């Protein structure tokens, strides 16, 4: 039992360990250097990442509260990887931050929440994990304590999330009332398509939609992303979204099978709206973070198409895309993070003439944006291709056509930034920014990831074998 516990929950345990160590350090009031602590956390995260590839077992713990298997371990590992990259990237921002340990405590507790959410086998556990992965994030959003926008972002986030969890809870209560069970396995058989159930399901979808910022539940996204500190924004847009997507796939595929037809159509509508609205808003943005917020909304639209495939290809492509998305979006955020931390500039216009002063960073950002835009040979191309292909598997070519054309719109705004960096002239470009080893490492990981994960089919095939 204890053995099982240690092995099955090893990822969660490591994260908990980090949290407690940090708490201890913070409470012990010793003057530990921030750098040391950051490195310590990074090393442990890396270890956790590595350990995620070994001794993988399938099993349940705590009754049916916790379930894990190879696929779920992989999903957690992906989130862990993303967190590690963000942590590496935030080095410059964190090393002088007064509340560095708290930052990690909050961030890692949300990560822990996501792990539990992925492993949850039960609506209660799911809800708790969801809250664990949301509430501390609101606090994190406020981590630029002196900035008005940061507080505003945090406020918007907490209100929106509370509202959405209220609706979600109402939905869960209706599910509970209709079926008498909270267990996923039991739900998959007893959740029939009565009107009330459909309504409850809509509420649940809205809860998910809120977290992945699907239209029309996305409105908080841009404001929160803009106001939050960059590391938090990247965390929000990549990790927290990725986690909920993993859960969404498994919940839709495994639990709500009786509502198959309805949720397919629902996702169809939502994904079309999400793509279009996300794109339309992204077109006009001037702030990098806000821009990436809307672009990430549009990305979610594409991911939803992959989910509609409802096949092994569908879930494999979603997981694969999240991996690609981690690399690409974090590469972009890495650059923005660095620039924001050293110069405080976050506007697209500030990036004019960026290539003159920072050719390498420009290429990193460019590759990241190409990947987000789905341009080969970056992994983003493969990711999107597989998503759309999975979606096309259901034979809804209208959806695929809309998506394909939306890719064109999305390309426009990605290219806009490329244009600013490479083509536009600027009197005062951002000065030559020196990145430390840590952000550099993060960028190397991301760029390598962007290039390798697509051209080499290993990642996808591994995921596919797990999904199958």
């Amino acid at each position, binding site marked *: 039992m204890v053995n099982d516990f240690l092995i099955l929950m090893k990822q969660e345990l490591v994260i908990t360990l980090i949290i407690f160590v940090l708490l201890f350090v913070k409470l012990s009031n010793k003057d530990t250097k921030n750098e040391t602590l950051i490195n310590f956390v990074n090393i442990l995260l890396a270890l956790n990442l590595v350990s995620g590839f070994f001794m993988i077992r399938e099993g349940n713990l*705590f009754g049916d509260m916790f379930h894990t298997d190879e696929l779920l371990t992989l999903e957690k590992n992906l989130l862990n990887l993303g967190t590690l990259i963000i942590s590496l990237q935030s080095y410059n921002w964190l090393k002088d931050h007064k509340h560095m340990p708290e930052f990690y405590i909050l961030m890692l507790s949300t990560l822990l929440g996501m792990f539990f959410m992925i492993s949850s086998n039960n609506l209660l556990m799911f809800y708790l994990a969801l809250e664990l992965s949301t509430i*501390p994030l609101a606090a994190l959003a406020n981590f630029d304590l002196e900035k008005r926008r940061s507080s505003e972002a945090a406020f918007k986030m907490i209100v929106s999330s509370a509202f959405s969890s209220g609706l979600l809870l109402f939905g869960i209560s209706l599910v509970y009332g209709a079926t008498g069970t909270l267990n996923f396995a039991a739900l998959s058989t007893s959740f029939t398509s009565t009107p009330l159930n459909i309504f409850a399901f809509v509420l649940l979808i809205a809860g998910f939609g809120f977290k992945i910022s699907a239209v029309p539940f996305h409105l908080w996204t841009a404001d929160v992303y803009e106001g939050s500190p960059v590391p938090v924004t990247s965390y929000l847009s990549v990790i927290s979204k990725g986690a909920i997507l993993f859960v969404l796939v498994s919940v839709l595929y495994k639990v709500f099978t009786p509502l198959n037809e309805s949720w397919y159509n629902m996702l169809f509508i939502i994904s079309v709206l999400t793509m279009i609205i996300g794109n339309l808003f992204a077109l006009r943005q001037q702030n990098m973070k806000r821009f990436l917020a809307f672009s990430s909304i549009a990305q979610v639209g594409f991911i939803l198409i992959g989910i509609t495939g409802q096949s092994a290809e569908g879930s494999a492509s979603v997981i694969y895309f999240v991996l690609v998305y981690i690399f690409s979006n974090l590469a972009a955020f890495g650059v923005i993070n660095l620039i924001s931390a050293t110069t405080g500039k976050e506007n697209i216009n500030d990036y004019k003439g960026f290539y003159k002063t920072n050719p390498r960073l420009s290429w990193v950002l460019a590759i990241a944006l190409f990947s987000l835009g789905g341009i080969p040979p970056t992994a983003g191309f493969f990711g999107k291709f597989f998503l759309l292909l999975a979606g096309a598997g259901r034979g809804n070519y209208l959806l695929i056509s809309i998506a394909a054309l939306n890719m064109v719109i999305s390309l426009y705004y990605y290219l806009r930034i490329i244009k600013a960096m490479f083509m536009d002239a600027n009197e005062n470009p951002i000065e030559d920014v020196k990145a430390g080893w840590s952000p550099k490492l993060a960028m190397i990981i991301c760029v390598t990831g962007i290039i390798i994960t697509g051209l080499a089919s290993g990642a996808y095939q591994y995921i596919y074998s797990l999904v199958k």
Partner: protein
Amino acid sequence: MTASQVIFYILSAFILGTAVLSVTTAKIFRSAIWLLFSLIGVAGLYFWLEVEFIAAVQIVVYVGGIVVLIIFSIFLTQQSGKEMLKASMLRNIASILSVLFGFALTYNLIYNNNFQAKDKPFDWTVNKIGTQMLETGENGYALPFEVVSILLLAAMVGCIVIAIKSKPEEKNG
């Protein structure tokens, strides 16, 4: 009409009435008080439902914790007597319409679903709740309990970081 019924309807009316007052009254302090009443009313409803444990938790956490916190923060942030600004007419109308419509829709669905009570005794004891809460096996809630505790910890850390007045000036000066 039995006494139980009468009590129920009175309680219901009380809960809803105070809730409405709480969300409409112009003075923030009063609003908090109405909320307090409403929460107490809900606790009363739990009593009426014979789940005294939940009623107790409700009173302890909500009345003793949250409302106090709210009132405390009201004192921190403004004068209690001042009237609050009103939302715009448009917003009000939109809200009322959407809320009424939402309510109609939802309740219609719930009503038509025709929940039928099972004629079985609901047996819960504090003891049972306690054991299940800490049980790790089937039907155990140990893990959720842990999760919530971490959440509380994180929330606490977060609150402290955010709410405590930073003193950068002192450090620098």
